[in-house]
């Protein structure tokens, strides 16, 4: 049973990652891509790790996986922030049309 749940979680995680990758290719605006990549990092990665922990059961390996998950949750937002912050300070801005839809970046 735990094997089935673990594998199901890994598949769900991979689906999240696949959707993220698809969206990164579809959306052209820089900040949309940053936010979507942050999603791939968090939801996809956490689900895959939970799947691996369930597959492994109660052991030292699953405890290590949990520690990896904690370290990832602490460091991943920092890297996302660094990329977004450097783009913002470099002058990338969001432009809008009158109907509120995104059109293009301020600096191509």
């Amino acid at each position: 049973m735990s094997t089935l749940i673990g594998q199901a979680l890994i598949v769900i995680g991979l689906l999240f990652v696949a959707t993220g990758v698809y969206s990164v290719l579809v959306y052209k605006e820089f900040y949309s891509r940053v936010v979507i990549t942050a999603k791939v990092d968090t939801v996809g990665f956490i689900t895959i790790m939970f799947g691996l922990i369930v597959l492994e059961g109660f052991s030292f390996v699953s405890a290590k996986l949990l520690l990896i998950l904690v370290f990832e949750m602490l460091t991943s937002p920092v890297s996302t922030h660094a990329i977004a912050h450097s783009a913002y300070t470099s002058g990338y801005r969001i432009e809008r049309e009158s109907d509120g839809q995104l059109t293009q970046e301020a600096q191509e």
Partner: protein
Amino acid sequence: MVSKIAWYGRFMALMVAVWVVFSENFSLQTILIGAVASVVALVLTNRLILKSDYAALYHVRFVPALWYAVRLVVAIYVAGFQALARMLSGKINVGIVDITTELEDPFAVSLLANSITLTPGTVTLVQSGSSLRVIWLDCTTNDPEIAGPIVKGPFERLLQAALR
């Protein structure tokens, strides 16, 4: 003083637990080595790296912090499914909004910024004092008063409880 000793005790227990997991060996010898290593690490960090005392700088309450982590994972999933639906339907409306927080401690503000970035749909751009500039996937308003509670969710209140 008692609470300080209790804080160091709990923190040492956490470090020993991490040491045991890394060693993959639950024995008295491993626990003792872990305890000695954690004391050495705490003393060296206190004396050489930190400007103030460890317990004073990182006054984390363990049970509320654990509850905070659980709520964070739940929030990540709720926001994840919402962002997924939005991305697939093409209804994304990215905007940059300024929010302010009642948290004053830089450590707490950093944790709040980290949590906001972890929830899919928002990424912290700039942090200056108690104000944060955030990219928001579903930007419905630019008013900091209205956007603040939506972006921050329950995290600000939970952090106040965990870091009191």
